[in-house]
């Protein structure tokens, strides 16, 4: 057997299946990211509250769902809840009966716990002086939060958010244990029938890499847009024509990927 026999023929034939798996992976990434972020806000507020009866449950939530490995969470939600007869008869079975629902629930809870901490760190990083100045100017607390704290928090927390999103995408690779056919599951399926470990796994790895780097480019662009007021003005001589995707920008983006 020669080194790394990547069967290009098999790779080409499996591409449609792999792409279908990628679609599932994207779906189980995007939905928990949205729900988890939404869930993170109230939990973060509770966490940062002064009253113990609010902050303690939030703390326990974060410690549990961040400290427990995702694989265990999936098992608990899928097998654990599946055993409760009461749940099986009730309306919640629509959610927990479907493996897809279980996966979304487990991933959302896990992501929410991480996002609570990212949010908390970002909010804490906002310089208190700016907040105090806003209060002195008589701006309401709600407005301070929406127009002063959050925009700054997003800028401070962007890198941490990006790291969490990338880790999250990589973490979704295990959902095949609860019967969801994501990209990894498709690759494994091809391996289990053809006994060729390299081709399907390397193809799947390439697709994950492409997806993750697309996300990273997105974050890089977002970060640049957020910091647009801080960018140095190009001198008229070297300024690029608006709308043209210059070579310099491309190479800077490429550096961001690697």
């Amino acid at each position, binding site marked *: *057997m*020669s*080194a*790394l*026999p990547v069967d290009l023929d098999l790779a080409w034939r499996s591409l449609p299946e792999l792409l279908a798996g990628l679609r599932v992976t994207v779906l189980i990434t995007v939905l928990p990211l949205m729900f988890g972020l939404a869930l993170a806000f109230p939990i973060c507020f509770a966490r940062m509250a002064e009253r113990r009866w609010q902050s303690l449950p939030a703390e326990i939530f974060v*410690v*549990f769902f961040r*400290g*427990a*490995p*995702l*694989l*265990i*969470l999936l*098992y*608990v939600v899928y*097998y*654990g809840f*599946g*055993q409760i007869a009461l749940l099986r008869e009730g309306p919640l079975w629509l959610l927990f009966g479907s493996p897809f629902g279980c996966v979304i629930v487990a991933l959302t809870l896990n992501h929410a716990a991480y996002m609570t*901490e*990212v949010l*908390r*760190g*970002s909010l*804490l*990083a906002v310089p208190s002086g700016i907040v105090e100045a806003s209060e002195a100017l008589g701006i309401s607390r709600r407005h301070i939060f929406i127009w002063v704290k959050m925009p700054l928090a997003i800028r*401070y*927390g962007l890198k*941490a958010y990006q790291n969490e999103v*990338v*880790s999250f*995408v*990589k*973490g*979704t*690779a*295990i959902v095949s*244990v609860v019967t969801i056919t994501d990209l*990894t599951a498709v*690759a*494994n399926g091809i*391996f289990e029938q053809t006994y060729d*470990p*390299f081709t399907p*796994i*390397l193809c*799947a*790895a390439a697709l*994950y*890499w492409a997806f*993750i*780097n697309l996300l990273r480019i997105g974050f890089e662009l977002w970060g640049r847009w957020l910091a647009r007021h801080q960018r140095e003005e190009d001198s008229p001589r070297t300024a690029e024509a608006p709308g043209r995707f210059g070579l310099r920008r491309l190479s800077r983006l490429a550096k961001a*990927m*690697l």
Partner: protein
Amino acid sequence: MTNLSPAEIAGYLRQLGEGALVTLELFLTSFAAAFVLGVLIGVVTLSRSRIIRAVWRVYASIFMGVPSLLVIFLIYYGGSAMLSAVLGELGAGVDISPFGAGVAAFAAVYAAYIAELVRGAIDNLPKGQFEGARALAIPPLVMWGKVILPQAMRLALPGLVNVWSFMLKETPLVSLAGLQDLVASAKIAAGATKEPFLFFIATALVFIAFSALTLRLATVLEIRLDRGVRRPDARASAGAQA
């Protein structure tokens, strides 16, 4: 609750204990390997050679952009084929166990993260450290070992703690390659006793407890390493780090 005798439950709990030892073994071995490899790679790739830096960028991009599970499967199922391609007949005889595949995979992936941390830490050291060592004619190995790296470790510590907790939570992945670790034992016990909640939540608590314990030790270590250095923004950086 269940139709099993306490003796049987005790039997399964004992299997869980044995599995926990395997997990611990896997985790500590992997972290040690990743650490040593990461520091080495981190130092070497600071070189001015363009080739080395390009290789670093490619390696880092690949291993930080691909799920660890795929790396584990690739090494476990494809490992012996890869070894026999590189080492010939000698390689074909080596049997890669799930444990070996797990350590190799984690070392390869997390060495990249650790190397990045080490590079960042060394970059943040005042250039005077290097210049002073050169002025005092300190041999390079001693300079790295006794001057640069200890200071770099102090700066990299929060990041290293992060890698520690993260890797800990990825160790269950190796059970999917067949390692009889804590998670695999819990799954068998849960299936046989029809008590998934009991065993899986117990397993989760073990991980959380271990993580919390080591986090506490890390804080102690951080305080100890910070002696003699005033870090006025330590609290803010720790807050943003979470």
